[in-house]
């Protein structure tokens, strides 16, 4: 009897506690809504809501991306804002945890009342898409592949110059480059990491190989936690491909280069969709081993890519990177920052040109219909929100003197060998083997 009374009281007390918590949360949310939605009417700032990876695995992309956005905001405000409106960045860290993205995006939309949204990476952008598309706000995606495939949101725009058919356009150049060689190589071996980038790269590669008439003699995938690549590269070597096509993430890229060199795997063309060599720390770690390897880039300090403003941006970016003391991110930073900045420039120009601040539909239509001049070159967009043309560059590491940052900085080390329009040097072919 006593026990039952006690138990009942326990139930009611717990329910009371739960109810109090629920009320507090609801009230807190409401209060927050009330306080943050109040904005003085006269000097309305343009609010940019950013959900980005400041911590977790993808912070190595998120932090440089956010830094570039902040540099843009400073530049813009120093110049008096956009059409008289100051810009304000509201950024939340999703800690590389996708499940946090929808709520954060929604907070930006309905509590912070931002005007435009920015995310980074395929997974987070795809997770932001349902919420963003319902709100009808412009969503800028930095560096994702096919993130709009699920919803086909017409106000999504991709910063990276990949092209209208992302999987294919990302890697097409490598195979066109290979096809242009005389005598044309016939066989290719694929090695791809098991993540969204690696697999999309591999899918695009398969299509490009078919278009270019290459036979895939080996198709390897490996998990991102792969410890060593010696066995894998021995296996690949044993299939004796004419060219290698590697889709890898930064750490793996290092392991693959080291293992390939170790087992003396020397296809006629070595490289592919490798992320990693673009990072300064890894360039320095690999040193001369990178010599001759071909990989993609979006921007490199070659004279053919001297778009207006890009060099001064790079200098400012390096200053910020160095000022952060701990060298918090890549000091040279050619992969993520220029296009993060360029996407924001595009937004500035669109808002100014359209003169339709506050009307997302109009702005979306305007962006689709115009060309923007940015530090990343001319941006135009296809219906999917990807760039309407591909400007993925293929570079070959040449003239690498040693293993230091200076051995890679400046022009002449990452020589653009494709496409012809931006070419800054000739492909050294066949792959000369491993040095250094």
């Amino acid at each position, binding site marked *: 009897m006593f026990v039952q009374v006690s138990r009942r009281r326990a139930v009611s007390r717990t329910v009371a506690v739960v109810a109090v918590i629920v009320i507090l949360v609801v009230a807190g949310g409401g209060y927050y809504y009330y306080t943050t939605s109040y904005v003085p009417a006269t000097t309305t700032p343009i609010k940019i809501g950013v959900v980005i990876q400041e911590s977790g695995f993808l912070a190595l992309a998120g932090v440089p991306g956010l830094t570039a956005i902040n540099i843009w905001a400073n530049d813009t405000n120093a110049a008096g804002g956009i059409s008289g409106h100051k810009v304000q960045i509201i950024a939340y860290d999703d800690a590389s945890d996708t499940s946090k993205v929808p709520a954060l995006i929604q907070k930006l939309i309905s509590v912070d009342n931002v005007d435009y949204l920015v995310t980074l990476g395929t997974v987070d952008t795809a997770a932001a898409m349902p919420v963003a598309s319902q709100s009808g706000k412009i969503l800028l995606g930095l560096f994702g592949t096919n993130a709009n495939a699920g919803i086909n949101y017409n106000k999504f725009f991709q910063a990276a110059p990949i092209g209208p058919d992302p999987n294919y356009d990302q890697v097409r150049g490598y195979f066109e480059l290979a096809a242009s060689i005389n005598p044309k190589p016939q066989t290719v071996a694929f090695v791809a990491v098991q993540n969204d980038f690696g697999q999309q790269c591999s899918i695009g590669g398969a299509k490009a190989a078919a278009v270019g008439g290459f036979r895939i003699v080996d198709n390897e995938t490996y998990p991102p936690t792969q*410890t060593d690549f010696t066995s894998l590269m021995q296996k690949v070597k044993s299939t004796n491909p004419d060219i290698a096509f590697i889709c890898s993430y930064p750490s793996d890229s290092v392991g693959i280069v080291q293992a390939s060199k170790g087992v003396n795997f020397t296809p006629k063309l070595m490289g592919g969709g490798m992320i990693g060599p673009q990072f300064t720390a890894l360039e320095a770690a690999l040193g001369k081993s990178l010599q001759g390897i071909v990989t993609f880039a979006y921007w490199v300090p070659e004279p053919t890519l001297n778009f207006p403003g890009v060099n001064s941006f790079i200098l400012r970016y390096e200053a910020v990177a160095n000022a952060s003391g701990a060298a918090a991110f890549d000091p040279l930073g050619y992969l993520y920052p220029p296009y993060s900045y360029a996407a924001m420039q595009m937004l500035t120009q669109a808002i100014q040109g359209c003169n339709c601040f506050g009307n997302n539909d109009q702005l979306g239509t305007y962006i689709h219909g115009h060309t923007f001049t940015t530090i990343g070159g001319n941006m135009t967009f296809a219906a999917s929100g990807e760039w309407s043309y591909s400007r993925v560059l293929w570079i070959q590491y040449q003239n690498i003197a040693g293993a230091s940052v200076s051995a890679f900085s400046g022009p002449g080390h990452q020589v653009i060998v494709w496409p012809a329009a931006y070419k800054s040097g000739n492909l050294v072919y066949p792959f000369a083997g491993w040095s250094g």
Partner: protein
Amino acid sequence: MALDLLLESIATGLLIGGFYAALSVGLTISFGLIDIANVAHPAFIILGAYFALALSQTFGIDPIIAGLLLVAPFYVIGNALYLFYSNTFERRGESSLAGLVLFFGLLILLEVGMATQFGVGLKALYSAYGSVAVSFGPLLLPLRFVYSFVAGVAAVIALELFLSRTFRGRAIRAVAQDAQAVSLMGAKPETIRLIAMGVSIATAGLAGGLVLAVGPISPYQDRLLIGRVFAVVVLGGSGSVVGALLGGIVLGISENIATIYLGAGWSLAVSAVILLLVLALRPSGILRR
């Protein structure tokens, strides 16, 4: 050719196994012997890697040597960690699982701390032997893993000698079996655990040097190691450092053989199946004591 490949994969798997053993052997002591499920152990390894990087760059020494230099300071860190743990959890008489909350919190704090102190990007050290392979008969073995294998095996041997030949070492093994009886032998169980945790974290310092010698490092890399190090500890039979070496080798070789015959994409699945099978058939690990 196929036979060559198989031999090659076994040989490099063996080397990787030594590397895994070096990563896991400290956990064998904390988790296997003194019942402290330190999930933050891999975070300490990465911390060691960053310190090794700083040492290597400052003094121009090899990362493995730098890792050796870290053994003493990390021993002290381990002592401090134990004192904190025992004062907050153990003394309350709660199970070691209560400590998981502490160690998981610590894991996150270490990650954030490393990210802010050392940057979120990748760091790597240029090493002259990074992409060198040595021939061994028909086999080509990656030199950086040869070195880390040697270091890992040396660490295992040193620990095995410590645990079986010294009074303190034996007491560490004994305290896992019966702490009260240990106190009846004139040893203070808390002190023994303090030593054990010091040794455990000291190995993380060395392992950090090896991780740096093997590839690039980043602040959140510890997450990639958690599953593997616990698998190695359990495969080997928790509490057995020689078992950790065997567990590491089994894992290394099976991952490599899976790479050759099924594709590397299946290697994690294969090692998970092996772990599950070992648990089903010999729950106390390969080396049952």
